[in-house]
């Protein structure tokens, strides 16, 4: 009996169990009366029936003995089975038969018989209600026809001998009784745990439960907020089919993940997960990758660039113990809409990049939140998995360290920690046959002389240039909302200027920066596209009449930019 424990009830345990066992079957009183009656009789058999029952009550139904002896054995939940030893119905039937046949008159016999039957009907509780007595099973397997249908549909569709399915909880207990060739992803105890059954809540601690929960959340609960975990679970469990109630509306969601709507029965719907291909769908689904197509005059080849900025990976360990607390706080702030931590989102962006196969992966600053070893190691491991070449420009955070922010110490001690990812310079460059990609390091909303000279050298090569600047540049066109929006999001300086944009109405450029901006915005500038980050929201407009500027949203939120550069026709 679930929830009825010796430990809780003590000597009341037996009484409570008996009360539950008897329930509404009140004619059991006749049994006890009969046992007492037998004690007064001379009949040996009757006396022994009484002795047998009394012996049981002195031993196995003795509250004190049960508490002392059975308690430590942990048989609480199955204790009720000892009541089967009581010959309740046999004794009552014996008494009824005896009293019915004691009379010689048939009328009296029938009368007693009717009374006995009436007692049973009145004081009993029917096991099977009369209305269900003639409800014949759907088939000779004694399972619903839907179970047969589902099994048939899956085998028709599957090439595998033992397809694995995640199935509705109502079918979980029955499907393998009919079809043992099906393997089930979801385990009974975990399903009961997910459904909230108290005695199964301890299962929550199991690693397998978390994996299966991700599937149950979707097909039982209709919760689509954790796509990546869902697909991960589907893949790791190699689940071929999902079978769930039609009341859960998941068509668009599952189809967007590359799953195939197979068929519907009266109450259930079946999907083929095609799980081998589902990962790419899941990754892309969990990210927010914008696609842009830009025509670049002067190029003959088509290029694709995958651009990310501002992932703010903030992993820290004992090697940077002074920053542990701050890093923890920062880490909690840089999560996507599902609460997924930025380093994991960054890995997904790398995986997405591998799927999209760009010519170049560009990191436009603030990829790590501080030059902590754990973050740098994580980044190194992630980039190890990247299929394409990459460029990494510095933002205002990548090599900061505690209070060291664009200080000499930051440049001398912490920037070198990132040396493995970049050339030892204040800009990075990728030169193609007919195109140059120029990634400028940020210097606290300004550009260094070295970076300026780098751009000048690039311009001298007379090829179209794409410039990546961590901090966006104020457009020279009138119809831009960049300054206003950035002020709305980040607030304004005391003079009313934007804090996060380079320009007259933002961070006023110094000598080098001004020249850098002019080189970009000049009417004859070869720079045709500027990519930026920093402000943590997406924005696209014309920097000049000839140059487009696209600001990507933050990578920690899963945002990225896939740009296709097309030759002018």
């Amino acid at each position, binding site marked *: 009996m679930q929830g009825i424990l010796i430990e809780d009830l003590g000597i009341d345990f037996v009484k409570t169990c008996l009360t539950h066992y008897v329930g509404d079957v009140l004619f059991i009183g006749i049994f006890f009366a009969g046992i007492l009656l037998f004690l007064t009789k001379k009949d040996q058999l009757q006396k022994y029936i009484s002795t047998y029952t009394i012996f049981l009550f002195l031993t196995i139904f003795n509250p004190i003995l049960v508490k002392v002896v059975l308690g430590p054995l942990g048989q609480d939940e199955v204790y009720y089975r000892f009541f089967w*030893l009581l010959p309740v119905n046999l004794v009552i039937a014996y008494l009824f038969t005896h009293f019915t*046949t004691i009379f010689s008159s048939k009328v009296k016999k029938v009368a007693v018989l009717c009374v006995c039957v009436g007692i*049973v009907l009145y004081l*009993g509780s029917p096991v*099977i209600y009369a209305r269900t007595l003639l409800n014949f099973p759907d088939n000779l397997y*004694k399972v619903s026809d839907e179970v047969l249908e589902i099994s048939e549909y899956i085998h028709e569709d599957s090439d595998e001998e033992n397809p694995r399915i995640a199935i509705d909880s109502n079918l979980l*207990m029955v499907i393998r*009784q009919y079809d043992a060739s099906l393997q089930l992803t979801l385990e009974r105890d975990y399903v009961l745990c997910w459904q909230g059954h108290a005695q199964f809540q301890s299962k929550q601690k199991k690693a397998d439960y978390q994996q299966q929960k991700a599937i149950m959340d979707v097909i039982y609960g209709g919760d689509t907020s954790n796509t990546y975990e869902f697909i991960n679970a589907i893949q790791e469990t190699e689940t071929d089919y999902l079978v769930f109630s039609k009341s859960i509306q998941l068509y668009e969601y599952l189809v967007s993940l590359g799953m195939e709507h197979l068929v519907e029965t009266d109450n259930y719907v079946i999907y083929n997960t095609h799980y081998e291909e589902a990962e790419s769908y899941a990754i892309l689904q969990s990210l927010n990758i914008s696609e842009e197509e830009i025509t670049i005059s002067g190029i003959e080849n088509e290029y694709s660039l995958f651009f990310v900025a501002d992932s703010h990976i903030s992993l820290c360990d004992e090697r940077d113990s002074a920053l542990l607390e701050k890093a923890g706080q920062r880490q909690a702030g840089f999560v996507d809409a599902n609460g997924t931590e930025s380093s994991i989102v960054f890995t997904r962006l790398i995986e997405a990049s591998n799927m999209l196969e760009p010519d170049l992966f560009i990191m436009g600053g603030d990829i790590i939140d501080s030059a902590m070893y754990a973050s740098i190691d994580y980044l190194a491991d992630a980039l190890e998995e990247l299929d394409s070449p990459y460029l990494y420009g510095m933002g205002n955070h990548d090599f900061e360290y505690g209070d060291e922010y664009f200080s000499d110490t930051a440049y001398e001690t912490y920037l070198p920690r990132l040396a493995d990812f970049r050339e030892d310079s204040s800009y990075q460059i990728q030169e193609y046959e007919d195109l140059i990609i120029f990634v400028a390091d940020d210097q606290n909303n300004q550009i260094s002389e070295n970076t300026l000279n780098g751009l000048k050298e690039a311009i001298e090569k007379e090829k179209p240039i794409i410039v990546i600047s961590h901090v966006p540049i104020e457009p020279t066109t009138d119809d831009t909302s960049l300054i206003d929006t950035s002020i709305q999001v980040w607030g304004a300086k005391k003079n009313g200027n934007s804090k996060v944009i380079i320009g007259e109405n933002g961070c006023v450029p110094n000598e080098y920066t001004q020249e850098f901006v002019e080189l970009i915005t000049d009417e004859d500038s070869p720079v045709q596209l500027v990519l930026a980050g920093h402000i943590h929201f997406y924005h696209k407009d014309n920097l000049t009449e000839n140059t487009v500027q696209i600001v990507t949203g933050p990578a920690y939120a899963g945002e990225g930019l896939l740009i296709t550069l097309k030759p002018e026709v």
Partner: protein
Amino acid sequence: MNTIIIGLLFILELCLFFSTGLLLSKLLKCNLGSVTLTLFTGFIAYFCIFGIIAIPMILLSFPLSALTYTVMALSAVIIIVSLILNYKQCFHIVKELPHTISQHSFMIILLFIAVFLQQLIVFNHIDWSADASYYIGKVTTDVYTNTMGHYDPYTGEALSKLDSRRIFACFQEYNAVIAQFFDIHPLKQAKLIMPQILTLITSILYYQIGLQFFNRDKKKADLFVCFVILLDAFSYTIYTNSTFLLTRTYEGKSILANIIIPGLFYCFIILWKNQRTKFTSVLLLLISFASCIFTASSMLIVPVGLTAGMLPWIVKEKEWKQVWLYILCILPNLFVCVMYLLSSKGLVSFPIGG
């Protein structure tokens, strides 16, 4: 066609149990003088033999087919030998049938109606409980994989060791054997044929108890059975033996509640009436042993029942020699109990394949 096959198998299995009963009575040199008692005894004896064959094969990771062919070959031998040795008795039974029925008068009609209604309830009831997913899932899984307990019935995952809790309770393998040999779906054997057999055996046992209660008055025994069936139908809480009989008939626990315990009670009645024979002692032993084959739940319940039924009688009647019978009867379940404790403490395990 399916229904006919199911009906034929139902009859064939009853014949098998009856043949076993006949053979046992021949071996014990006692004429049971009753078709129903022979059937009940044969049912119990057959599962004792089945357990003796099946348990070592399960422990040694034999394929199910090995058990199937062994058991079915032995069953064929039992039927043939029994027919050869008892054909005269069989003719006698058939010859005496009208007389036997006449002893019941119209009560037999009432009895048949009651038994039929009980069978109908069991036939129509569909049980989707978690226990069914294990017990029936195990039969289906074993037949599909041609193994015995090597795969998790809930999920179909391969296991590294046998379920030590239920290692001796190999009753469900019988269903797997029948399903495999006759190439029928395990559900038909486990949820259609076997529950009908079990319900019938239960009614037979009630009848035999009735005969003991009323000094072999068949009419009173008939009425007694009708009353018990009525009482069973109105004894619903999820815990009662009646509920198990009518809704979870296929489970070993139901056999414990409705065949093993009443079977013990039947033997106790004979002891208490001081009408003990060699047959009663053997039947008591067989029931005690068979209980381990049907369900692990018997490991405490059966010894307690045996103690309550036998010890006061031994003491009062000073039947001290029967202490040995008592000890022999509780030994199988005590052994199961010890093995259970050892396995639950991790001291004993049964790895698959060795």
